[in-house]
C-alpha cells in the first residue's frame, strides 16, 4: 500500500472520524460533552491498560533488547525540550517561561497519539515491539523536567525542581502508566490474561469514545488561535515533523523494527496535554496557558492524529529501506 492510501485509511478510521465528530459538535455548539468524571475514568482506563499491556510484553523481553531503545528514549527526551526551547526563544522571541513551558509539552509525550499509532499499525497488520508502552513511560517525565530546569537556570530561580518532580512523578497519569507497567511486568503475560477481556479487547472502542471528547476539547481551544500568533501555529506543525523524522532515524538506529520505529517517531513527535499542563502550571505559573495548550492540544494533536502518524510511518519506511 502506498503512503497516500494509508493516509486515506487513517482518515477514515473510527478513531479519527470520532475525533472529527467531536470537533464538529464543538463548532456547531452541539451537546456531546461526556461528564468530567466519565472523561477522567476513560483516561485512567486507557493509561492503565497501556501500561499493563507494555509491562506484560516487557516480562517476555531481555534487558539487552530494551537497553538501546531505552537509552534512545531518554536521549531524545532530554534533547527535544532543549532544541524546542532554543527555537522558541531565538526564532519565536518567546519569554523564558513561555518558551520553557511549550518545550516541556513537546519534550513529553501524548499517550493518546502514541496509542493511535499502535491502532494504525494494527489495522494494516504491521507488527511492532510490544514493550513500546514501557518506553512511553520513560519519555513522559524527562521532557517536562528538563524544560523546567532550563527555565530555572535561565531565570536564576523560580520553580523548585523537587516540587515539580513530585508533581510529575505522583501525577495521575504517571502513577497509572508506570503502575500499569509494573503490574504487567510482575503478573507476566499469563497473569494478565484473566483481565485481558476488560483491559485489552475493549481498548480501541474506549479510545474512540475518548477521542470524540478530545475533539470537543481541542476545538474549544481553537478560540485562542488568534492570540497565539502565526509563529506558534507554524511551530506546532513543523516541530512534530522534525521531531518525528529525528525519532524515525534514532528509533531505527536503536534497532527497532519498522513498526517500532514508526511508534517511536510518533512518541517523539507528539506533545503532552495531560501530564505537562498540570506540572507546568505549578512550576511555571507565569507562562501563559493559552500558548502551550493551544499549540499542543488544538494544533499538534489533531495534526499527528490525521497526517502525522502516516507521515512518520513513511519516514520510518524510507529510513528502513
Amino acid at each position, binding site marked *: 500500500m502506498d503512503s497516500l492510501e494509508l493516509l486515506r485509511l487513517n482518515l477514515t478510521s473510527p478513531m479519527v472520524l470520532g475525533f472529527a465528530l467531536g470537533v464538529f459538535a464543538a463548532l456547531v455548539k452541539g451537546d456531546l460533552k461526556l461528564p*468530567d468524571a466519565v*472523561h*477522567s475514568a476513560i483516561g485512567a482506563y486507557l493509561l492503565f491498560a497501556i501500561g499493563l499491556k507494555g509491562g506484560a510484553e516487557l516480562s517476555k523481553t531481555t534487558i539487552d533488547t530494551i537497553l538501546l531503545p531505552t537509552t534512545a528514549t531518554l536521549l531524545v527526551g532530554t534533547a527535544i525540550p532543549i532544541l524546542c526551547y532554543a527555537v522558541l526563544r531565538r526564532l519565536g522571541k518567546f519569554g523564558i517561561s513561555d518558551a520553557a513551558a511549550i518545550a516541556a509539552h513537546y519534550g513529553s509525550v501524548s499517550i493518546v497519539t502514541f496509542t493511535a499509532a499502535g491502532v494504525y499499525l494494527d489495522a494494516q497488520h504491521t507488527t511492532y515491539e510490544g514493550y513500546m508502552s514501557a518506553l512511553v513511560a520513560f519519555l513522559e517525565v524527562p521532557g517536562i523536567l528538563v524544560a523546567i530546569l532550563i527555565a530555572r537556570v535561565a531565570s536564576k530561580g523560580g520553580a523548585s525542581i523537587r516540587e515539580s518532580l513530585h508533581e510529575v512523578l505522583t501525577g495521575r497519569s504517571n502513577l497509572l502508566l508506570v503502575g500499569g507497567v509494573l503490574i504487567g511486568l510482575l503478573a507476566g503475560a499469563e497473569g494478565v490474561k484473566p483481565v485481558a477481556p476488560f483491559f485489552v479487547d475493549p481498548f480501541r472502542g474506549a479510545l474512540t469514545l475518548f477521542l470524540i471528547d478530545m475533539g470537543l*476539547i481541542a476545538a*474549544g481551544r481553537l478560540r*485562542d488561535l488568534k492570540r497565539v500568533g502565526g509563529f506558534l501555529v507554524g511551530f506546532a506543525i513543523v516541530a512534530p515533523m522534525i521531531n518525528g523524522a529525528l525519532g524515525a532515524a534514532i528509533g531505527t538506529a536503536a534497532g527497532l523494527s519498522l513498526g517500532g520505529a514508526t511508534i517511536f517517531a510518533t512518541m517523539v513527535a507528539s506533545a503532552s*496535554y*495531560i501530564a505537562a*499542563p*498540570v506540572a*507546568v*502550571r*505549578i512550576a511555571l*505559573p*507565569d507562562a*501563559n*496557558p*493559552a500558548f502551550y*495548550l493551544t499549540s499542543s492540544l488544538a494544533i499538534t494533536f489533531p495534526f499527528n492524529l490525521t497526517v502525522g502518524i502516516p507521515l512518520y510511518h513513511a519516514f520510518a519506511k524510507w529510513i528502513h529501506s
Partner: protein
Amino acid sequence: MHSRSGSTPEDEFRTVELERVTIVAESVLESRLIALVRELGARGWTLTEVRGEGSRGVRASEWEGNVKIETLVPKAVADRLLASLARDYFPHYAVVAYADRVRVVRGEKYS
C-alpha cells in the same frame, strides 16, 4: 453573639460569629490550597468541584474544572488567608476569594 434560647437547652443553639472564607480556584491548586488553609490555622475545610466562568477564561487543564474550598475561621485567620492568597496566587492563577461573617453553631470547634 448568643441566640435566643427557647425550650431547647441553650447549648444547642448557642452560635459564635466566625468568618467563612470561600476560595474558588483552578483544580491544579487543590492540594496546595488545602495545605495553606491548614497551615494558617483552619481546623477544617469543605471542598466542592464546581464550574463557572470568570475574567480568566484559560485553565491549565480546563476539563479538570475548578474547586471551591470553604472554611470557617476566626477573623484573624481569615485575614491572613486572604493576604496570603493575594500575595502568592492572585498574580498568576485563576483564584477568587472572599470572606463573609456567619453565625456558627458549636462555633468553639473552629477557633
